């Protein structure tokens, strides 16, 4: 196949856009923590970007996209990107490597929110590299690298399962292992800067066009559809959460942007397979469902601190199922439950449950192991002073 300069140009831009999502996640979460942890929260996202960037070229890419081993993992044939050159369809292979790298980085950045305000920096770095290697890479291989879920026929256009289910449910497991923040439910832990969170959302919404429309791996009709349904679902999700919070209390800005993220998460696996009308339904339902998941989490007294589980985990689960419900043959060549295709829906259920079980289970074991070896959590004094001063020797606001 000939490389296509239009496709290549679009994927170069998409890669840069998804890279920008990583600090975008950092700003989104930094606004939600107390001011004494803002530098820490942003740093965790930058660390995710830096650590995964190195891990990916050495090992991550080959484990995800190397030659299939038993449907579970890629082999080491492309370790260190040895022999990776030429084309991957209509784009350069190396560009595909870079594009996929940014997905792995943003996933770890989302996961960092589960341990906000109490994670030891060194432990996060060790845990992060291990998690990417043992959880993200196998899942990416299952779904996109020719692994067993791909064989099963499960659809995941841009990473609803690989990125969102995995980061959301892993964040929950990690939060269970590390424990609640000091003074949880006793002290006020209100977000210190909602405008910062909104700025992060703006970068995420923008970057998500690269995330979803880039996942078409071409600059054509599929990318155009993905971009439009992505925007539509984000809008529907924002309005749905806003209205849901309005019925409860005042319509909150933080709720609105959380709803936008929920809509973006849910449309991610479906972006290449559904039309704009379905996107309204998928996004709106995501807003309501994720809002309900957040209320459920609070009622269970789980300190999964910034709702990665409620928004990404549950939003990703809904998106994976919705892909099997709303997929239209005229859009992406596959039909879902609404058009009588029960098998597609069944494949989505199996893929979601497998991803949940694997991500949650492996993360639980891995977190306990890292905790046993080096301790996941800072000391009580360090937590009280805040991670900015105790981990970085810096303050966000002089």
């Amino acid at each position, binding site marked *: 196949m000939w490389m296509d300069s239009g496709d290549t140009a679009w994927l170069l831009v998409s890669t840069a856009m998804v890279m920008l999502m990583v600090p975008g996640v950092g700003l989104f979460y930094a606004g939600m923590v107390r001011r*004494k942890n803002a530098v820490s929260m942003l740093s965790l996202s930058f660390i995710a970007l830096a650590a995964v960037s190195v891990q990916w070229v050495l090992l991550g890419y080959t484990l995800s996209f190397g030659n299939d081993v038993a449907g579970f993992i890629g082999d080491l044939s492309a370790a260190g990107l040895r022999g990776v050159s030429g084309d991957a369809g209509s784009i350069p292979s190396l560009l595909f490597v870079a594009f996929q790298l940014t997905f792995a980085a943003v996933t770890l950045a989302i996961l960092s929110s589960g341990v906000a305000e109490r994670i030891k920096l060194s432990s996060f770095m060790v845990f992060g590299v291990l998690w990417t290697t043992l959880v993200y890479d196998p899942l990416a291989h299952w779904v996109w690298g020719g692994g067993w879920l791909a064989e099963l026929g499960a659809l995941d256009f841009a990473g609803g399962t690989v990125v969102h289910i995995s980061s959301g449910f892993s964040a929950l497991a990690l939060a269970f292992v590390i424990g609640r923040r000091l*003074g949880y439910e006793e*002290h*006020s832990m209100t977000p210190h800067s909602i405008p910062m969170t909104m700025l992060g959302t703006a970068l995420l919404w923008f970057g998500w066009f690269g995330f979803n429309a880039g996942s078409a791996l071409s600059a054509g009709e599929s990318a155009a559809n993905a971009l439009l349904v992505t925007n539509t679902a984000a809008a529907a999700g924002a309005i749905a959460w806003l209205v849901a919070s309005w019925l409860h209390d005042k319509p909150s800005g933080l709720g609105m942007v959380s709803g936008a993220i929920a809509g973006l998460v849910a449309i991610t696996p479906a972006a290449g397979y559904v039309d704009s009308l379905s996107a309204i339904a998928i996004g709106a339902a995501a807003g309501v469902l994720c809002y309900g998941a957040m209320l459920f989490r609070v009622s269970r007294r789980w300190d999964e601190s910034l709702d990665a589980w409620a928004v990404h985990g549950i939003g990703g689960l809904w998106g994976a199922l919705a892909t099997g419900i709303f997929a239209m043959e005229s859009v992406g060549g596959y039909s879902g439950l609404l058009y009588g295709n029960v098998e597609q829906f069944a494949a989505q259920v199996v893929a979601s449950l497998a991803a949940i079980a694997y991500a949650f289970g492996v993360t639980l074991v891995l977190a306990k192991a890292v905790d046993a070896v080096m301790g996941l959590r800072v*000391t009580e*004094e*360090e937590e*009280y*002073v805040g991670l900015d*001063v*105790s981990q970085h*020797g810096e303050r966000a606001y002089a």
Partner: protein
Amino acid sequence: MKMVVAIIRPERVEQVMDSLEDAGFVALTVTEVKGRGEQKGIQLQFRGRTVEVDMLEKVKLEVVVEDEEVQRAVDAIIAGARTGKIGDGRVFILPVEKSVRIRTGEVIQ
């Protein structure tokens, strides 16, 4: 009249305000401040050496009360602010000569 000034933990502000309100003290002023107590802040261990974080964020509350109400106000503040750990803060009592309501010019001695 006396002014009761309390330096408390930022995370206890809501509890203190609630307990003051329950005791009948509604009007107050809140300021975010930084400072240090006798312990010179908090000592952190870092690579075997001690690092002092000596300027900690605190909140200053100011409430003006009648002389005979001072103890009740102080008790309410303590009830809301006490965690039992070092760094719970201090309460100071200052004399107030008079108070003037800006809207009406009314003087309260």
